[in-house]
């Protein structure tokens, strides 16, 4: 890809991120039960994976054996994926107007009943272990597809995640790519103040992982790192630490330690959408 093409693509990804953020706020306006701050920190990650074509997928054939598997372990923070999946044709765009309404399949936390979601989400600490099983299965089949996982940093409090981290390193699962949405805030406070999880790098390194760190809102950095991670088959599972801001794009949420449980007033959302 030439420099101009790359620049164009990065511009496109940045525009998509702005659009996804707005669409996510619209969803939150009709469904205030949704976890808006967690969903906003992962916007660029979703945008780069889907519009940057890091993920090999086919919306018309959702169970295609040749697809990359994407496990969204921090399920509550994936409302921002709804507009992307609708845009790509996984389901009708009109469904976005009915999130959390009676009779819809788009709930406050996405499950595998929604086209495009592989697993049951909502309970933290499951996705990585399941992804390890999928990664082993793909290797057994000699399939070249990759497994991607989106983890929240708060999820790292779950012991089951560490069972899986140990397992992935030992089994050299180099087809496994984990993106850590490192927004540094749990439900009640900064992780640092609850029980400090940092530093991540040394811990994963000790369990035989490859680690990279990026600004999780910089589409350029995300795009290049994810491409490298995916292509590299070096006997090691990959961790991309994406440093993000919880509630990114909404000043009243950004870095408020209680933003996880904060709902935005419709007028506040309208003001942001106009801006």
């Amino acid at each position, binding site marked *: 890809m030439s420099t101009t093409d790359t620049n164009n693509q990065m511009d496109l990804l940045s525009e998509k991120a702005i659009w996804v953020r707005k669409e996510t706020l619209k969803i939150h306006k009709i469904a205030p039960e949704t976890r808006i701050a967690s969903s906003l920190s992962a916007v660029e990650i979703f945008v780069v994976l889907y519009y940057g074509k890091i993920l090999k997928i086919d919306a018309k054939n959702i169970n295609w054996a040749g697809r990359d598997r994407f496990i969204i372990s921090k399920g509550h923070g994936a409302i921002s994926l709804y507009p992307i999946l609708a845009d790509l044709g996984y389901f009708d765009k009109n469904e976005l107007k009915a999130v959390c309404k009676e009779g819809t399949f788009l709930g406050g936390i996405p499950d595998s009943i929604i086209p495009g979601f592989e*697993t*049951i989400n909502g309970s933290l600490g499951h996705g*990585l*272990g*399941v992804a*390890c*099983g999928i990664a082993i299965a*793909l290797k057994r089949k000699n399939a070249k597809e990759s497994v991607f996982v989106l983890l929240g940093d708060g999820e790292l409090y779950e012991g089951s995640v560490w*069972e899986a981290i140990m397992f992935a390193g030992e089994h050299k699962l180099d087809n496994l790519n984990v993106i850590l949405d490192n927004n540094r805030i749990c439900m009640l406070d900064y992780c640092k103040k609850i029980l400090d999880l940092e530093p991540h790098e040394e811990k994963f390194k000790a369990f035989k992982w490859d680690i990279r760190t990026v600004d999780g809102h910089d589409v350029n950095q995300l795009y290049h790192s994810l491409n490298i991670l995916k292509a590299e088959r070096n006997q090691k599972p990959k961790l991309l630490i994406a440093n993000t801001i919880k509630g990114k794009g909404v000043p009243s949420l950004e870095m408020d330690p209680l933003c996880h449980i904060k709902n935005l007033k419709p007028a506040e959302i309208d003001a942001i959408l106009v801006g």
Partner: protein
Amino acid sequence: MPYKKFKTGGDRCNTRGVSVTAEIKTTRDVFIEEIYKRMHEDENIFFLCADFGSPKLDALREKFPDRFINVGIAEQNLINVATGLALEGYTVFAYAIAPFLTMRAYEQIRVNLSLQAQVKEININLIGVGAGLSYDVSGPTHHCLEDISIMRTLPNMVVFSPSDWALAQKFVDYSINVKKPKYLRFDGKPLPQIYENADAIKFENGFSEIFHGERICLVTTGYMTCKAINVAKKLAENNIPIGVIDVYILKPFNEDLFFETIKNYTHVITLEEAFINKGGLDGLVSTILNSKNSDIQLIRMGFEDAYVFDIGSREYLHKLNNLDEESINKNVKDLTREELK
């Protein structure tokens, strides 16, 4: 030794194709040996364990290093890795000590097996070894008195509780062909053979009537079935013919056929090496009796609402908790006397 008399051989009873013979085997070894055979021809089978062995497992893990995975002492990850493999279409067996498999990893089982199976087809067979008081002297952490009720609670879950190794051997086909999550509740100790002709077993019904009797029927599962048979045989010698029903699949269960089978009895005694009044085998029977507006009296035998800290053999612990053959015998005789009054 609870089944000494079978070891010496010759003690046989034949009722409706069911017999108790001298051959004693460990359920898990018979089952694993059969899976080992299947793995030669069926490349779709994975066998996972949480650092738990068996003499028969040694051959399997040596022969199939690519499809045998020891995840370490990590039951939660055992379930999650099994789920990933099953989502990719593999038939998975996940093997661990029963109380740790079911209770340490209960939420993993709920989310990734029970919930997921309602949306996608997954074939995961959880093999829990150490039902009831199998691990008698290891104490209450190793006893497993809750699993029947907690696993029966989960939607989309099959619960298999075999009373002998022949049933377990026969269940291998079911475990591979029926693509659902299943819990296999295996005893930790060698058991005598009850089903001589296990091929005739219909797993879809969930139970077999071993003895047909009058007035009183023992409804049992797992290890306790053999005791029930012994008690029934002794009583038959004294002209008290009681029924014995062995429940080997607690879920799904043919409730109508079960009620048809017990409806002419006046008393049903449930007998399980598990807590009673908490939705176990007694709960299964009680719900059926209630839904059929039956006036059959239900007597529940099992463990009361307390853990067992006493040290001793399984038989000794059974005696302390009124689950030995003598106590069962007495319960039946008391009922018979009551009836005569």
